[in-house]
């Protein structure tokens, strides 16, 4: 099996055994849950090519970013970096630290990935436009450049329930809509007042905004009105009736947060859920791996996309997949060809399938066939949330409707005052969010 796994992608590479003989690549990742799976893949890669890949993990994300920042300054970067897709990769590209691989990634390579993420890491027209202001994070990139290939895909806004706690409250199937979800929260909280709430790492300021409010607003209002919430028009922004309506829906969660959710990091919230301190956990497709690391079996988890309001504009809203992490080559790499071989090896279907099993995460590679048998039933359930049309799919990677200097953390701070902190009413929160958004527009040059 290992031989088959190893040989398939190599054939796709068009490489041959020993082409990089004796060379050593270094790679950094910020995902502890990816480390073992990557090292397993590296063993196979070494057998085939003779190229050793040394992989190290540094976390959490902020510490990793700081390490990359420092290493870039001291010219001490590894050959390959796992980065946040369509974010860090473009920032590194804009400053010349990431290698432009647009000319090397042909359709034979990008075709290995899921359709929705095949161009991830590329400077599209939209991304180029976003990069133009001098204070843009990605300032300096050029249209058509590519600074990463996708590695893992997935989405945010995945709700996970503890099947045992849910069954105790009489819940055996995922809620069909937002109202049912709120009713389910009420049931679990009534059954277990201290351990029946929702865990969400609200200490990380934008989680409530980006993982719950935004997909909820998209479902309730539809794409155009959702995007208008972040626009300049005061008749359609967060202080408008539309804005207040979605904030009101979000505020319905107020009684059901796990005690102290606002003081929990994302990992802390997931750990609390795994320890039975909460009946529900809101995260992403990547959360299951962490839960498993913390002793929870995937089969004990009921997973589904954040439900949409039944009377909303998009009642069957899908959550669009996006490349969550990508692989970037440092421009200082002395072995860029070998680095590309390694990246392409990881994109191979069987290598990716093995990675999915080892890491309990969704690879960006199109696995084809029966994903449930490859990744397990719970992970496959999560992937059902991807199914939708362009009109009914909430795409978290779209940002061009927001001001270029938009800061989601500041927005998250304002939203936290609505719930879970209960410091502001829906109207006050709507006004404050609209005011902050307008200030971003005012300062966008």
């Amino acid at each position: 099996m290992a031989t088959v796994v190893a040989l398939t992608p190599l054939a796709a590479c068009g490489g041959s055994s020993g082409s990089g003989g004796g060379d050593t690549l270094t790679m950094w990742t910020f995902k502890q849950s990816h480390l073992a799976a990557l090292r397993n893949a590296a063993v196979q890669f070494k057998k085939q090519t003779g190229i050793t890949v040394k992989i190290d993990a540094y976390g959490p994300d902020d510490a990793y970013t700081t390490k990359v920042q420092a290493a870039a300054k001291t010219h001490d970067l590894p050959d390959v970096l796992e980065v946040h897709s369509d974010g860090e990769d473009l920032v590194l590209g804009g400053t010349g630290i990431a290698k432009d691989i647009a000319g090397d990634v042909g359709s034979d390579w990008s075709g290995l990935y899921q359709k929705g993420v095949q161009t991830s890491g590329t400077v599209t027209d939209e991304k180029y436009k976003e990069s133009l202001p001098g204070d843009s994070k990605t300032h300096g990139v050029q249209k058509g450049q590519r600074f990463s290939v996708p590695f893992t895909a997935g989405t945010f806004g995945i709700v996970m329930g503890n099947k045992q706690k849910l069954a105790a409250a009489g819940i055996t199937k995922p809620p069909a809509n937002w109202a049912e979800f709120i009713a389910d929260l009420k049931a679990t909280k009534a059954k277990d007042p201290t351990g029946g709430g929702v865990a969400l790492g609200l200490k990380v300021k934008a989680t409530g905004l980006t993982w719950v409010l935004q997909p909820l607003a998209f479902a309730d209002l539809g794409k155009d009105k959702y995007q208008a919430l972040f626009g300049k028009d005061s008749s359609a922004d967060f202080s408008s009736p539309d804005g207040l309506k979605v904030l009101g829906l979000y505020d319905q969660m107020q009684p059901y947060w796990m005690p102290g959710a606002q003081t929990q990091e994302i990992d802390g919230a997931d750990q609390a859920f795994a320890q039975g301190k909460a009946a529900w956990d809101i995260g992403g497709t990547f959360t299951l791996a962490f839960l498993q690391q913390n002793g929870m079996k995937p089969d004990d988890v009921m997973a589904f996309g954040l439900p949409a309001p039944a009377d909303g504009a998009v009642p069957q809203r899908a959550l669009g997949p996006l490349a969550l992490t990508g692989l970037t080559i440092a421009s200082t790499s002395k072995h860029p060809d070998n680095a590309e071989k390694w990246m392409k090896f990881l994109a191979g279907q069987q290598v990716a399938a093995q990675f999915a099993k080892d890491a309990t995460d969704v690879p960006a590679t199109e696995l084809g066939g029966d994903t449930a048998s490859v990744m397990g039933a719970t992970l496959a359930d999560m992937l059902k949330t991807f199914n939708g049309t362009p009109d009914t799919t909430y795409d978290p990677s779209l940002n061009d409707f927001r001001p270029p200097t938009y800061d989601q953390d500041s927005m998250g701070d304002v939203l936290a005052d609505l719930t879970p902190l209960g410091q502001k009413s829906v109207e006050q929160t709507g006004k404050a969010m609209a005011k902050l958004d307008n200030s971003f527009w005012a300062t966008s040059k």
Partner: protein
Amino acid sequence: MTTAPRPAVAEATGAGRSTAPRPPGTGLLGRATRRTGRRRGYEALSGWLFVLPAVALFLVMGLYTVGYGFLLSFARWNGFAPHWDWVGVQNYKDLLWANPAYAPRVRHAATHTLYVMIAVPLLTVLVSFPLAVLLNSARRMQTLLRSVYFVPYVTSGIAVFFAWQYILQPDGAVNAALKTLGMGSLAQPQGWLGNPHTALPTMIVVTVWGAVPVAMLMYLTGLQTIDRSVLEAAELDGAGWWRANASVVWPLVRPITAIVVLLNLRDSLQGFQTFLVMTNGGPGDHTNVLGLEAYRLAFLKDLAPTLGLASALGWLLFAAALVLALINLRVLRSRT
């Protein structure tokens, strides 16, 4: 060292041998002068060699980094781009009033910082001075007690702040103790750091907990230098324990109070590690302080080019600290 006349010089200065003027540097006097000059040269050289490492260290680690940071405050940079974009004083203007995305956050953080700057020095003095007085009057186990009270200082660090987090959680030790003591109504269901009304006061208490040991030790040192006769004279004049401490001891340790206040003011103004570890400015931004805001601008903005803003905020904090130090010096000078 001797005060006896030096024969060589006396001989050299003896009159009558020659009245002709000698060129400088000739003869015994000249040789002695030359020797002295050479010795002074060696001394100066060895002196310079001794201080050279410190000077080099200061030039590299101090002057260079300070200069670098100051220049950065006039630029826009994300930490690794090859070039800085010069923006003049725009960073300062943005932070103080010009940019509605930054200025309100800075003002909000400044308000929290002001609360901390008022509460922490005040509470530290209020706790540490009586504690030092009690410890000074303890007849037994003074060393043990001093060590016990000093524990918070030597154990302060990331691990302790994490421990505080657990203690302050909804199911933490503080709430459990309150419930056990029948004061469950005072317990915080969202945790002491989860309630926006208790989060900042709780952070102030944790900061004071970490500041009291050093302050107490300083007071204890001061108390032990007070002449016993002064206190005995007060006793003879009929002053009780309370009056003696309030009217005699307290004024005598006022310089120490000034130092304690200055150190804690500075720490409250610039410190942010406790806040970063325990609250990250939350819940919401109810415990955001200026030091943390500078850190956030530097490292927590997803690689946005805001290092210049962070540096500018750092220099504003430095200016505020300088003003405080000058005020403190002035107060010290007028009272001592």
